[in-house]
């Protein structure tokens, strides 16, 4: 058995998702997409992690784990709570953005951007300044009655060593999230347990000054598309129509901004303050 304390346990009701050990096939029949790291067919995604095992995700309801008996527990948690979870959320029809979500002055703001654009670090600074965390890394969005909502995610940050030190925390190898991926887990309070209305999506960019610029039309749509997981699989699996529809629906109802900021880890407290001030007086959110 492996503990997954980050997830909620279903005690009195039937679980929304079952995660269990079992036999996972080496391949899928008639795949729509087949690669060295994954295969996909309607309702099934098979993920390969070399000598760390295989995982099968079924119909947005089940994750089956097939790993060597001597597997490191951290490896299983890393794969289940990362790639498997986002594949499962995608099967459930959710649009999954690679973003951190934080509550700023009552507004749920998704921070997206390229790898190493500082999503988690900036969010962690905002969290330290009393902005509740809604989710780290995975932002699962759904639209109901014309309003976009985001599901609360796992209450922890995944941070590089320099980010952790900038936050005044001492790195310790026991907090590595994976033995080959030297990010550290920093836990956060789970203060939000229900879906929250998504106010804005902010794309982090390198710049000289702090500035928020509203994106519209194709620029907004193509930028939003780049923040989703499985872009390649969407293209290859021929499921681009629902994906495009979800993206355009979200871009219509949630404002998307580009946020340029000085690229200096020592200036992150200033960046967090600037953003909180912008939400307090609404001066920059045009």
């Amino acid at each position, binding site marked *: 058995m492996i503990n997954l304390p980050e997830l909620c346990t279903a005690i009195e009701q039937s679980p929304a998702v079952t995660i269990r050990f079992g036999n996972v096939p080496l391949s899928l029949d008639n795949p729509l997409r087949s690669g060295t790291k994954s295969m996909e067919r309607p309702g099934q995604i098979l993920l390969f992690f070399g000598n760390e095992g295989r995982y099968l995700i079924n119909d947005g309801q089940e994750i089956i784990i097939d790993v060597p008996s001597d597997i490191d527990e951290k490896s299983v948690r890393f794969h289940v709570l990362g790639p498997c979870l986002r594949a499962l959320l995608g099967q459930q029809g959710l649009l999954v953005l690679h973003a951190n979500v934080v509550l700023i002055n009552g507004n749920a703001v998704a921070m997206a951007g390229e790898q190493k654009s500082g999503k988690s670090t900036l969010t962690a600074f905002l969290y330290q300044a009393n902005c509740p965390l809604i989710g780290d890394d995975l932002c699962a969005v759904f639209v109901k009655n014309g309003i976009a909502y985001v599901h609360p995610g796992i209450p922890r940050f995944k941070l590089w060593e320099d980010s952790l030190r900038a936050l005044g925390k001492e790195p310790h190898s026991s907090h590595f999230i994976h033995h080959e991926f030297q990010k550290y887990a920093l836990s956060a309070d789970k203060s939000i347990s229900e879906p929250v209305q998504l106010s804005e999506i902010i794309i982090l960019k390198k710049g000289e000054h702090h500035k928020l610029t509203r994106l*519209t*039309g*194709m620029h*907004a*749509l*193509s930028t939003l*598309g780049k923040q989703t997981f499985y872009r390649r699989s969407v*293209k290859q699996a*021929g499921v*681009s*129509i629902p994906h*495009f*529809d979800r993206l*355009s629906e979200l*871009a*219509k109802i949630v404002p998307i901004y580009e946020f340029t900021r000085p690229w200096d880890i020592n200036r992150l407290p200033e960046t967090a303050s600037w953003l909180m001030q912008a939400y307090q007086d609404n001066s920059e959110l045009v």
Partner: protein
Amino acid sequence: MLELNDSDILLRSEEHVSCDLHGETIVMSIKKSMYYSMNKIGGVMWEMLSQPLTFSQLTQTLLKRFNVNEAQCKNDISEFLNGLHEQGLLHVFHKE
């Protein structure tokens, strides 16, 4: 370069998805997974191309609807249609 005659029949391809966003018509080619943006007149033409029509019908309708010079209008429409054709978003049927 696609040479268009007045009697050529035009029809947009089904291999796309599109939406209207903040006043722009955005079309994505399913085959190429590329986005294309159209302004107001482009959006009107894109809508008209959902049904088969001749090049002449398209140009005459736009000339009536928008106050533009005929030669310039034909030139701009040809350029737009060429772009669509290159991206696999337009079928052109030459009438015998």
